[in-house]
């Protein structure tokens, strides 16, 4: 169950932006100039993706958190080497997966770990059947990657729309400082943008995914 957080969402000149342009390049640039606030935004944005990828590799919470700390420490020192800010989600995913598989290998005392053994590390994957949990985990990480690439105002709104217990539009309006009447339209623009992310499109196109429900 996720409760709404009170975190500030904004970068100095980005927190109140209402346009729908991608703000990832700006966050990366500001973090590279030394902005702790921009860095915190990046961390908050990608934390769910990192945790989900670590869990997908079979890690329990404690190990997943160790992996995550390593990922942030690596990113701090590699952020300025990223030629293209749009490569960031991919970098984060690959780095997390590598670290998580190392950690999983150690946790299982299973010796070498490679792509072929990933399935064995994930519970419920040993019966030779296409695993519903595995497919769901893939879908979760794809969605979280697409979610991380949304502009801040879209992310904040969708975050509040998915908390449990649900918030009223009045509450959401007050928390975000936006008119109630703009919530509906922004919600559908945000979801449309999420849906169009190539990561989701790729997943949707796969036959096994189409049949995931059995």
């Amino acid at each position: 169950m996720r409760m709404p957080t009170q975190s500030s969402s904004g970068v100095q000149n980005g927190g109140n932006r209402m346009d729908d342009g991608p703000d990832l390049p700006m966050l990366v640039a500001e973090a590279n100039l030394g902005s702790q606030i921009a860095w915190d935004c990046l961390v908050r944005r990608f934390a769910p993706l990192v945790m989900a990828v670590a869990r997908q590799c079979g890690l329990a919470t404690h190990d997943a958190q160790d992996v995550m700390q390593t990922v942030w420490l690596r990113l701090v020192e590699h952020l300025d080497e990223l030629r293209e800010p749009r490569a960031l989600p991919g970098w984060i995913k690959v780095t997390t997966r590598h670290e998580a598989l190392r950690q999983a290998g150690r946790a299982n005392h299973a010796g070498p770990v490679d792509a072929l053994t990933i399935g064995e590390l994930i519970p419920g994957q040993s019966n030779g059947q296409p695993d519903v949990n595995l497919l769901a985990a893939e879908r979760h990480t794809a969605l979280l990657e697409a979610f991380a690439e949304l502009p801040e105002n879209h992310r904040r709104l969708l975050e509040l729309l998915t908390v449990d217990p649900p918030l009223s539009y009045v509450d959401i309006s007050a928390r975000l400082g936006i008119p109630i009447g703009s919530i509906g339209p922004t919600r559908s623009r945000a979801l449309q943008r999420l849906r169009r992310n190539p990561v989701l499109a790729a997943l949707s196109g796969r036959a096994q995914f189409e049949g995931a429900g059995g």
Partner: protein
Amino acid sequence: MTNMDARPWDEDEALLDQLRKALDYAGPVDLAVSVGSAAFTWRTIDDELARASLVFDSLMESTTRASGDDSAQLLVFEADSISIEVEINPGQLVGQVVPPTAGTVELLTPEGVVGQSAIRDLGTFTIEVRTRGPVRLRFHGPASSTMTDWFSGPR
């Protein structure tokens, strides 16, 4: 449940529901965020030191090692002029600087320096590790200093 049919994100409600499930799967991220925020202090620390990058990890190699083999994990970090090999044992790191060079090796956690060892003959060193989580080594030789990438220490 119904949105498992066909494409689960054609409809707004279904997509929002999928997003809710994905965020729940990731779990609470508050700790993630505070740990991540603190990592930023490492941005420019020891910027001037040579970096030794991870070039080998025995856990990532598909060798002939049998499953259940409990030999220690071996990491190799390389900088321009030296490499640092580290074996991860329970509670301690056993390593070697190649080529053998006099000096000291420090153990760092995200909180700072937590241990130190003099380099012995043949470039070997042993450092006790009492924490879990990411660590890195900083090697001080007569001519230069070198810092390894972060790696997961003994569990």
